[in-house]
């Protein structure tokens, strides 16, 4: 049986180009269970995330970011 040590991911925020939203993504992401750290890079339009893969998957984080995108576009 393997022991999970941790996971990290870098997502592109190319589609999340709403300037007023970029600053709040980090805060919203950090409230998800399993997120250990998140850092938005405004120069590269990327978000770097550390998470517990036993609580959260990459696909779930990507879906969460996509929901934020839909919310932002609906405003």
């Amino acid at each position, binding site marked *: 049986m*393997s*022991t*999970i*040590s*941790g*996971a*990290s*991911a*870098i*997502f*592109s925020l*190319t589609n999340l180009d709403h*300037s*007023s939203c*970029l*600053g709040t993504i980090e805060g919203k992401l950090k409230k998800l269970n399993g997120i*250990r*750290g*998140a*850092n938005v*890079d*405004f*120069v*590269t*339009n*990327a978000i*770097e*995330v*550390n998470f517990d*893969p036993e609580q959260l998957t*990459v696909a779930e984080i*990507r879906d969460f970011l996509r929901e934020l995108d839909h919310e932002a576009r609906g405003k």
Partner: protein
Amino acid sequence: MPPPRVTKASRTVPKSFRIDESALRALEAEASFLNVSPNTLVNQILKQYAEFDRFARMISTVKFSSALFRGLLSAADVNQLIEVAKAAGSSIPQAFVTAKRGKVDLDSLIDHVRSLAKYAQLFEFSDTVDSHGHVITLIHDYGLNWSIFLVHYLTAMLALIGMSPKLEMSDRSVIITISGA
């Protein structure tokens, strides 16, 4: 097995520079547009240079649109693409990580792949680490030829340190399983 690099704010220190006034105005306007402090924006610009651009310069890079990149890839002959990928994978990572980290090992090569995701936007990247090793997943929308290129680039790159990982691919992803690392 060490966990993946933790994303946390590193220590900041005060430092004064004289900069071009027009550059300052552009930075302040961009920071206002992005709703961040000029300090945050300047720090991230400097980090891009410190962690990637100064090393990328050594291998003479160019920038063009993602649409053009996608078009070039789809037009490429697959056999020639594979040869280019093998040659690039056995030379570029070595030059890059030797300049940046001073040695070629698994950690520095994974950092190279991470940098390509973060600073060159060539794919999205994830790395899950457990007692068996790494599972690295790259997601992109550049089509099957880009996956084929990446598989051969990464195979040649990891051969530099005598590793033969398991690789799987689709038209949107490449999964690298590195056991016993």
